[in-house]
């Protein structure tokens, strides 16, 4: 394991067509470049499709024997494939979702989705007086997706604890495809016309909620997750009070970087590496928009943060069981 041995590595992720996952891929790509001499294969189904991703992962552990980072929305489908990877001696790091029980993967790089939800909840709470009354409508873009549920639970817990006068409705299905997400939110806004806030936890919700305000001229509180370009613009334009970003890019970067370093001699840490999250609000919006411009701007902007995290693993590592 020479310091610059050529490595064949892979990043397998949930889908190639949605931005949150591409952020992680971009991060992985940047890590491969920084590590040097890494042949990185990026693979993902063109739509979220657990079983197909399993197949891709199985191919990846054969083609990229030096290490595979796996980002998936359906970790529980990967029990056998992860064990297969262990049998083949391919190091695997789980990204974004906790590796399933019954596998030998013991490094997980991810943010805390419960914390992410709480962070958004805290931002929301700042917007309303303590004695506020009224309704808050929650939306879930992909019912059945655990990490979104965790965010919703986190957010809800903060709101109910700190603003007991508010009535939290939902979560309702808010649809993930952009037009259906818009239509559903638009209908939700009409069906609950008196609500003071509409909160989502997916990548599209902020975009739709901003557009609704723009179209109807009605102002309400809106927030969600993920720094998608149009969502950032919405914060900038004042339609969205905050976005809680899971900082996907960092997860991809750290995972790949640790894997590469591992192949070149460093031991792979164990446990949950919490890369953290970021609240995007009017205070930092310009900086973040600048950061999200292109791949290079991201790489440059994250440089300090990645160096900091990689230099002090223990600060970021917690036991796997605490991941949430």
């Amino acid at each position, binding site marked *: 394991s020479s310091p610059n041995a050529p490595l064949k590595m892979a990043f397998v992720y949930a889908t*190639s*067509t*949605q*931005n949150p996952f*591409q952020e992680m891929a971009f991060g992985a790509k940047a890590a491969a470049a920084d590590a040097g001499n890494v042949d990185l294969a990026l693979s993902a189904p*063109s*739509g979220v499709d657990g079983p197909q991703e399993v197949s891709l992962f199985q191919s990846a552990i054969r083609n990229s024997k030096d290490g595979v980072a796996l980002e998936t929305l359906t970790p529980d489908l990967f029990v056998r494939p992860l064990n297969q990877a262990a049998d083949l001696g391919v190091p695997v790091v789980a990204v974004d979702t906790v590796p399933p029980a019954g596998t030998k993967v013991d490094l997980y790089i991810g943010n805390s989705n419960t914390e992410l939800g709480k962070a958004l909840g805290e931002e929301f709470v700042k917007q309303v007086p303590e004695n506020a009354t009224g309704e808050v409508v929650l*939306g*879930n873009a992909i*019912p*059945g997706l655990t990490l979104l549920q965790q965010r919703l639970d986190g957010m809800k817990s903060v709101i109910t604890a700190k603003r007991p006068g508010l009535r939290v*409705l*939902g*979560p*309702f*299905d*808010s649809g*993930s*495809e*952009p*037009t*259906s997400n*818009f*239509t*559903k939110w*638009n*209908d*939700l806004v*009409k*069906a609950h*016309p008196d609500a003071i806030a509409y909160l989502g936890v997916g990548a*599209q919700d902020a*975009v739709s909620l901003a*557009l609704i305000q*723009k179209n109807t001229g009605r102002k309400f509180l809106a927030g969600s997750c993920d720094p*998608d*370009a*149009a969502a950032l*613009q919405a914060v900038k334009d004042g339609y969205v009070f905050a976005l809680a970003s899971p900082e996907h890019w960092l997860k991809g970067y750290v995972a790949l970087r640790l894997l590469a370093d591992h192949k070149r001699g460093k031991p792979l840490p164990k446990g949950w590496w919490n890369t953290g999250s970021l609240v995007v609000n009017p205070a930092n919006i310009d900086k973040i928009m600048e950061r999200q411009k*292109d791949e290079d701007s991201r790489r440059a902007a994250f440089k300090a943060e990645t160096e900091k995290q990689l230099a002090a693993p223990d600060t970021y590592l917690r036991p796997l069981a605490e991941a949430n």
Partner: protein
Amino acid sequence: MTEVDRRVVPTRTRVWRAESSSVLVATVVLVLLIGVLRPAFLTFGQLKDVLNGSVYVALLAAGMAFLLAMREIDLSVGAMFGLSLISTALLMRDGFDPWLSCLAGIALGALLGLANALVVRHIAIPAFVATLATMQLYRGLAVALGDGQQVTGLPLEHSFFSVLGGDFLGLPVSVWILVVVTAGLTVVLRWTPFGYRVRSIGSNPDAAAFSGISIPRTRLYVLVLVGAVAGLAGVLGLAFFTSGDPNIGVGFELQAIAAAVIGGTPLRGGVATVVGAVFGAVLLGVVSSGLVYFSIPANWSSFATGLVVLLAVGVDSALRRRQRARESMLGL
């Protein structure tokens, strides 16, 4: 009845019936039903929004009706919609005139349709398989061109956005455009030789070939038409949403087919109704918007949607059956 009577009276009725009154009635029944249970649904603004939200699938369904009429299916419509939308957005972002970009977007749709037709012809595979591949191809391009990002930063103050995204006589311009396109395509399907060709091929391909109708050529025109309509839908989508997302239109292909079939265009070809297809899309829109008024928990929303779609097509079918019972019976 006199000869004159026979010519005049039924024409209107027949056109009306052929254009699938049943799905319209089913839609109205559903709207009223929801309105009775949740009066808030019955506001002009809400109904306007339902119409506006149905425009894209409705346009794709209108095109799909042509394809189904000739026993073909295009699975790439959702991707063509998305790719046209994104490309138009990129052109605008790069400083091209929005109206020119808009034309380019429609032309791109037509071009993608042409590509479908060429694949069908030269690889000699059914349109269904060809467009299954091009669906991924086009969607992939939408992702790749926009670098996987939403395309923002468009000149929103330009007349393109205010006109196409705005209202006219109380209804969204895109709804007016849908009305015009529906009328136009209905005329094309019913009252032009081209429309006859399309339906002839679906009705009896052998006889069509025998009569000198060129199936490949007709298919080419139809695929281009469908592409152009998808391009138009994409441009309207951009005008409304004001930004481009590479995932926009995922799954629209099934919705468009469903809308056309629910509207009364069978998969076996030969007949089609553009108006029906459009109302089929509106029906689906009503179902999904209406359900929102019932505060269904997220985990039950898909179940409820399925149930209501079933209900809606049940009403439609019951209406239709009364019509049909008269016609068909097993007999020599």
